[in-house]
C-alpha cells in the first residue's frame, strides 16, 4: 500500500517536472500541450486532495474534483502571478509546478497509516470498476473507425469553412507612410475574388493624376502595394486618393480610398 502511494506521488511529481521542462525547452504545439496539460488541469487538484488526505481519487466524482480543484488552483495561481507581475509561460510553469510538488511532498510526510485508511475507502468504488478485459477485435475496430470518421468530420468542417467564401471582394487602401515623412504614403490592394483579376489603379493628389498602373494581374489572395511620394512640398492639407478599376468592367469605379496628407 505504502509503496503504491509513493509510486503515485512519484508519478505525479515526474509529470509536473516534465510539464515544466516542456514549457522551458519545447516549442509550442500539441506535443507540448499533451505533456503540460496535466500541469494545469490535473496535478494541482490531485496534490491538494492528497494533502487533504481525501479518499476521493477514484470514480467520476473524484476525477471531477481533481479537475475542478486544479482549475480553482490555477485561478488562484493567476492572481499570484498578477501580483508578482509574472503572468507569462515561465511564471505559470513555476507556480503550477510548486503547487503540485509542495503539497505532494508535505503529504508524504504524513503518517502512512492514515493514508492507508484513506486509500482503503477508495476501494468502495471497486464494484464499479472499469472493464479489466480487453475489448474484442470488432469493438477495437469500431473504436478505430470512430476515430477515423471523427478526423474526417473535422476535415470536412474545416474544408467547408475555408473553401466556401460567400463574399468575393477586393480590398483597396491608402495609408500614410509614417516613417517616410508627411508627403509619403502607401497604396495597395488585395484580390479576394476567388479568381485572377486584372486591375487598373490610379493615384491622384487633390484630384490630379499622380500615377497610373494598367493591367495589374493578381491571383486570388495576392496583394499589391506601392509606396508613393507627393512630388512637391506640403503647404497645407492634400488629399491622396486611389481609384481601382477592373479591366473586365473598366468604366465603373470599383474601389476608392483616400487620406488627407498634412504638414502638421
Amino acid at each position: 500500500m505504502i509503496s503504491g502511494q509513493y509510486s503515485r506521488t512519484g508519478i505525479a511529481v515526474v509529470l509536473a517536472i516534465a510539464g515544466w521542462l516542456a514549457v522551458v525547452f519545447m516549442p509550442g504545439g500539441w506535443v507540448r500541450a499533451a505533456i503540460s496539460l496535466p500541469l494545469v488541469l490535473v496535478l494541482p487538484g490531485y496534490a491538494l486532495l492528497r494533502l487533504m488526505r481525501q479518499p476521493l481519487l477514484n470514480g467520476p466524482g473524484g476525477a471531477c474534483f481533481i479537475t475542478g480543484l486544479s482549475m480553482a488552483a490555477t485561478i488562484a495561481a493567476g492572481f499570484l502571478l498578477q501580483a508578482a507581475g509574472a503572468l507569462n509561460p515561465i511564471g505559470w510553469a513555476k507556480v503550477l509546478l510548486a503547487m503540485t510538488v509542495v503539497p505532494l511532498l508535505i503529504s508524504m510526510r504524513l503518517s502512512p497509516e492514515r493514508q492507508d485508511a484513506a486509500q482503503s475507502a477508495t476501494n468502495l468504488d471497486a464494484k464499479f470498476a472499469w472493464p479489466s478485459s480487453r475489448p474484442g477485435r470488432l469493438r477495437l475496430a469500431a473504436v478505430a473507425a470512430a476515430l477515423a470518421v471523427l478526423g474526417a468530420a473535422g476535415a470536412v468542417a474545416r474544408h467547408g469553412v475555408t473553401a466556401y467564401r460567400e463574399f468575393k471582394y477586393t480590398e483597396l487602401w491608402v495609408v500614410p507612410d509614417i516613417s517616410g515623412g508627411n508627403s509619403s504614403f502607401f497604396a495597395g490592394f488585395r484580390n479576394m475574388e476567388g479568381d485572377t483579376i486584372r486591375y487598373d489603379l490610379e493615384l491622384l493628389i487633390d484630384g490630379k493624376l499622380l500615377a497610373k498602373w494598367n493591367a495589374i494581374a493578381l491571383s486570388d489572395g495576392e496583394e499589391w502595394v506601392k509606396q508613393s511620394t507627393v512630388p512637391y512640398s506640403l503647404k497645407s492639407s492634400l488629399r491622396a486618393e486611389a481609384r481601382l478599376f477592373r479591366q473586365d468592367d473598366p468604366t465603373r469605379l470599383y474601389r476608392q480610398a483616400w487620406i488627407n496628407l498634412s504638414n502638421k
Partner: protein
Amino acid sequence: MERTVSPANSRWRTSVITRLQWITGLGLQAGPFNEETQSKPADWGWLPYLSLLAAVALLCLAAAGNANRRGTDGAVELYWLTLAIMYFFFAVRISWPAAPRSERLALIGALGIALYLAKVLVSPHGFSNFDEFIHWTTATDIVENQRLYTPNALLPISPLYPGLELVTTALSQVSGLPVFAAGTVVIGILRLVCLGAVFAIYENVTGSSRIACVGCLVYMGHSNFFGFHSGFAYESLAIAFLALALLVPVTKQMSSTESGSLPALLITSMLTGALAVTHHLTSYLAAALLTGFALLEMIRTNTPRSNYRALALATIAGAAAYAGFHTVGGTTASYLGPEVEGGLDGFLRLFTGTAPPRELFVSQSGIHLPLFMRIAGVGSAIILCAALAGGFFRTLHLAGFEPMRGLKALLRWDNSLLVLLTLMTLLFPIALLLRLSPMSWEVGNRLGSILFFGVAIVTATAIHLQWIGTNPTRLRIGIVGVLLTLVFLGGIVAGGAASAIPSRYKVAADAPSVEPMGIEAAIWTKTWLGAHHRIATDRTNRLLMALYGRQEIATTIQDGVDTTPLLVAQYMTPYELDLIKKAKLDYVLVDLRLSQALPGVGVYFEKGEPSDVHQEPPATSALLKFNYNPEIGRPFDNGALKLFDVRALRD
C-alpha cells in the same frame, strides 16, 4: 397515547391513494424501486459501436452544415434529424436496464463530448458567438499584456471575472497553443466535469446509477446545454464549479466520516472562491442553494455536527459571493440590475397586455425552425411538466420524505439536497412563462438552466419509477428514448440555439454575421494602422475589430456615449460632430450590408439603442454621409466595409 388505525380505515386510505395515483400519476406513495441491486460485470458493451455512430453523425453534421452554408434545401432538417438520431440511440442504451454502470457512465461522457464537438465543427477556426468573442478578447488581452483587468469595452464586467480566462491562458501559455485551441480544450473538459459532477450528485442522492444517468440525459435537454454552455463564456466554467460545490455535501467520504468535515470546508472554499471570480450570478446562486441545503438540514436533523457543517458550507459560499460582489462593486449591479428589472418589467407588460409576446420558434438570429423542431419545442414542455407532476412526490419519497405517515413526517427526510432539488422544480413553470416575453426571455433562460439540476432528477425518477416501472420492455424504453429526444431537441429550441448550424451571412445575427470579409478587414486595421485606435462600428464589427484588429471599441456600456446616431444619421450635423469628440473617435467603420435587412438579434449596434434605429434598415446614403466631409479620409474600402478616418474632426 398510541394511535391505532382500524383495518377498514387503512383499506379506505390505501384505496383513495391508489385511485389518486391512477388518476394523477403523482406518486403520493412510493412504488417499487427497481434499481439493480447487484452490480453487473464491467463490460465495454455498446460503447465502441455508439462511439462509431456518434462519429458518423458528426460527419453528417459537418456535411449538413457545409450544405446549409451554400443554401442547399433540406440541410437544416438533415442537421437536426442527425442530432436527434444520435441522441436517441444513446438514450435508449443508457436507459436499458441491462447496461452496466461503467458503460452508462462512459456513454454519458461520449454523448456529452459528441454534442460539444457538434458545436466545435460549426466554427472550427475560431469562436463565433457573441459572448465567446467577449471572453476571447479578454483572454487575448491577458496573453498579450501579461496582466489582468485590461478594460474590455464589449463587456466591461468580463475582465473583472477572469476565472475562465485565467484557466485558458494558463493552458495556452504552458502549451504554446493559441487561445482558441486552449479554450476549446478547456470547455471540452468542463463539459465532462459538469456531466460527471451532475452524475455523481444524482447517484449519491438516489443511490441509483440508472436514475443518475437518465438524469444526465434529461440535463442535456436544458436550454443552454447544447449552445451557451458549450461556448467559451464564463458561465461554462461557473456551472461546473456550482455542480462540484453541490456535490461536496453529498459525497459520502466527506459527509459520513468525521475526518471529512475539514476537507469538505476547504474544497468548498476553493470552489466557491474560484466561482466568485468567475461568474457573478452563478456565485450568488451557489450561495443561495447551499443556504437552502443548510436550512433543510437544520429542519431535518438535530445533529449539531451535520448542522454546523451545512451552515459552514453555506457561510463559505455566501462569504465568497459577497467578497466577489464587494470587490467588483457597482459594475455588477449596474450590469445585472437593468437586465433583471427589464426582464421583470417585460414579463408584467406581457401579462397586462401592453407588450406583445416573443415570436416563438425563431432563433435569435432570425432562423425559422423546421416543423419537427417546433413539435419538439412544444412537446418538450408538455413532457417535462408531465414528468414533474409524476416524479415530484416519487423523488421526495426517494429522499425519505413520507407525508402520508402524518404531520410530523412532513419535516422528516433523509436527503436534504434531493429535497432541495425537488423543491426547485416548483419554479420551473415560472421560468417557462418568462420565456414568453422578449424582455424576460433571457432571465427565464438562465433561471431554467439552473432549475434543470432539479428538473432532470425529478424527470429521471418519473421515467425510472413510473414510465419504465418494474416491466422495462423494449417498447417502453423505445418510447422513453423518443420522449428524451424530444426533451433534448426542445432544449435546443428553447435556448434559441438553432443558429448553431452554419449558415449564409445574416445581418447583425451574431454567429451567422461572422465571416472572412469582416475578419480580414479587422486584421487589415491591425496590420496597417496599428492597434488601439478608437473605433465606432456596428455590433458584429465591434467583435471583429476588438479581437482580430485589437482596436478600442466605442460602446455606451463602457464610455457612456452612444455613437449609434453618428452611424445612422442622414447628415453630419453639429450633434454628430460632437459625438466624435465625446467618444474620442479615430475611425468609424461602416458596413453597407446593414442596409440590406433588419438585425437578426434585434439591434444593429447594442442593447438599448433607440428603437427607431431598427424599425427599418439604415439607408446606404446615411451610412455613406462621411464621404462628403472633406476633413474625413477613407483609408480602406472592400466594397461592403468602408473605414473612415475622423481624427481631424476629433482634435
